Structure formats: structure tokens, C-alpha cells
């Protein structure tokens, strides 16, 4: 038998293959043996709680900001509400009832913010008022996004919770729309007002940049330059 033939004979052994079922089972076991992540963040309910908590935080942050501009509300009350909501989420269990109650509070807070939006028109400093509309808009947007994520991962949520989520989502979207509209109105009014002012060279430059960005539809960038006006 020559070398070539010998090698050919040897190569026949490459027909030996593992059972396909074993191959996939072994692969699955390999990674399933991994210790499960025990942090509450990785538990389905924990993830919901995290998202809801994030939502509460942004809503409360926006509410706190609005309150600072609103003479009828005290910042102390807002922080009390804030603490109460956070404590509730910190102790939140799996109970869907708790989630519903929390969502109710979030919805109420969003509605409160929506009503307070009008107060922004009375704020003396239009720059700050505009910044607040940006906060509200961002809050509403993130709220709607957070709800969308919760809905997508809704394996453990009851119909009642889902219904509450839809309500909060609607309020969030409406708030985003309203704050966006208000922001545009206020921005245009503020730009017009700034143009009548006697601005120094630096502020004039900031105003021009803000206008350029605004005309390009880049409101966030425009806001940065608007906020710089009058600082120096």
C-alpha cells in the first residue's frame, strides 16, 4: 500500500461525526450552566420597576422644574411627592396592583405638568421657560418610549396594567406634542424679542447661531445658544 492510498484510507475516518442532537444540546448546556444574573435589574418584574422608576424620575424632575417657576406650587411639595413615589417603587413587588397604582400617579403627574405648561408663558425669563419646555418635551418622549418598552416585554403584566400603560402613553404623547408646539411659539417670540435688544458681539453671534439651528429644525442646538445669551 503506497502512502497516498494509506492517507486515503485514513481520511475515511473523517466520516465519524457526533450526533447532531448532542452537538446542539451540548452547546445549549454549555451556556445554560452560567449562573443566572441575580440582580433585580435582570428579573422581568425588576426590569419593569426600573423602567417605571426611570419614568417617575423624569416626570418628577420635570414637575420639580415647573414648580420652581410656578408661584402656586411649592418645591417642597414636589420633593415630598418625589420621595413618596420613589419609596413606593423601591418596595415594589410583583403585584400588578402596585404597578397600576404607580402608573395612575404617573399619569396624574403628567396631567399636572400639562396644565402647568401654560404657566411657562408667564415666566419672566423666556430663556429659562424655553429650557423648561425642552425638559417637558424630553420627559414626555422618554415616558412614551419607556412605556413602549414595557409593553413589548409584557409577559408578566396583567390587562389592567397594560390598560394603565396605554393611558400614560397617550398622556405622554399628547404632552410631547403640546410642549413641542408651545416651545416653538415661545422660541419664535423670544427670537423676535432678542432681535430688538441691544446685544453685545458675543450674544449677537449666539443669536445668529440659534436662528440658524432653529431654521434647520435643530431646536436642541438652538436652545444651547439661546441659553448662552446674556450669560456674559
Amino acid at each position, binding site marked *: 500500500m503506497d502512502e497516498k492510498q494509506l492517507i486515503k484510507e*485514513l481520511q475515511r475516518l473523517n466520516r465519524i461525526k457526533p450526533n447532531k442532537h448532542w452537538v446542539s444540546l451540548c*452547546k445549549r448546556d454549555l*451556556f445554560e450552566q452560567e449562573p443566572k444574573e441575580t440582580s433585580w435589574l435582570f428579573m422581568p418584574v425588576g426590569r419593569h420597576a426600573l423602567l417605571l422608576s426611570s419614568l417617575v424620575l423624569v416626570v418628577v424632575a420635570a414637575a420639580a422644574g415647573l414648580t420652581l417657576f410656578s408661584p402656586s406650587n411649592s418645591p417642597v411639595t414636589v420633593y415630598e411627592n418625589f420621595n413618596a413615589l420613589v419609596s413606593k417603587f423601591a418596595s415594589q413587588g410583583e403585584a400588578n396592583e402596585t404597578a397600576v397604582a404607580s402608573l395612575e400617579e404617573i399619569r396624574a403627574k403628567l396631567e399636572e405638568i400639562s396644565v402647568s405648561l401654560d404657566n411657562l408663558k408667564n415666566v419672566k425669563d423666556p430663556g429659562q421657560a424655553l429650557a423648561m419646555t425642552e425638559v417637558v418635551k424630553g420627559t414626555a418622549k422618554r415616558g412614551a418610549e419607556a412605556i413602549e418598552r414595557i409593553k413589548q416585554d409584557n409577559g408578566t403584566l396583567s390587562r389592567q396594567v397594560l390598560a394603565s400603560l396605554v393611558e400614560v402613553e397617550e398622556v405622554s404623547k399628547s404632552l410631547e406634542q403640546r410642549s413641542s408646539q408651545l416651545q416653538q411659539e415661545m422660541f419664535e417670540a423670544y427670537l423676535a424679542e432678542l432681535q430688538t435688544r441691544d446685544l453685545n458681539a458675543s450674544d449677537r453671534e449666539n443669536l445668529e447661531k440659534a436662528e440658524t439651528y432653529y431654521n434647520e429644525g435643530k431646536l436642541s442646538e438652538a436652545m444651547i445658544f439661546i441659553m448662552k445669551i446674556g450669560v456674559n
Partner: protein
Amino acid sequence: MEHKKRKFAKIYDHNVEKIYRFIYLKIGSVETAEDLAAQVFAKSWKQFKSGKEIKNTSAYLFQVARAEIADYYRKGSRYKIISTQAVEVTDEAPTPEQEQKIKSDIEEMQDVLNELKEEHQDVLILRYIDDYSVEEIALMMNKSENAVRVMLHRALKELREKMEKPVIN
């Protein structure tokens, strides 16, 4: 961690067949080969996820496999149980007779291979069955490329002698 898992899953897919075959050819039992191959990947995954550097994964896997086989025999399992259950005939639709003939030929070759020195078995399996290059085998066996070439030559010679040896019933 997910990134590491994906990376190791690719390593697994690429090597599982070869590692299994290597162990099976050395042990001769489907069940034991499956158990040992699973251990090889479990140990390698542990090492891989710990972040310790593995320069050549194929070489590393074979080193672990060889250690597992040595450990298996050290623990007292001295007999090789040959079973052709592991043979998957890949020819298109062979007849039962053809399939039986293929299995019988493979078993015969496997028997002869098992009579060779351990190192000769390894080098022949890696080079001609698993199709690794001499360079890769040198890494796997921790030898120089020249040493591998010499070993291959001797292994083939030994194999030829065994195959040409008349069978005495």
C-alpha cells in the same frame, strides 16, 4: 459577556466535530466521547470567559482534550470500547450493504490506528483526518514543525506495517 458567548459559540461550532472525533478515535465509546468533549468545551469556556489569553483556540482545545483523555485512562478506564454508532455515513443514500461495508472499513482502520503509539495516533488524526496544517499541529502538540514532519513520516510507516501485517485468526 454576551459578546464572549457569541465568540465562544463560533469556536464551538468550528471545533466540536473535530474534538469529538479526536476523542472518539482515542476512546472508542460514543457516550464517553460525548462526555469528555462536553468537558473539554466546558473547561475551555471557563477559561475563555475569565479573560485569560488563549493564543490559538484550536491548539488550546486539543491540549485540553488530550489532558481529558489522559485523565480518563488514569482513572482506570483502560479498555477501549469500539462502537460504530458515531459513524455518520455522508455518502448520498447508500444502500444498507454499502453502509455496512463503510462502517466495517472504518472500524478496521480505527482498530489499526489504535495499535499505534499515542503520539503517532494524534499526529495522523490531526493531519489526515482533521486536516490541520503541520504548523497548527506543532502548536497543538507543543513541538517544532520539523519534529511533527518526522513524526508524521514515522507514524505513516508504523501504520503501513500494521496494515500489511497478516491477520492471524
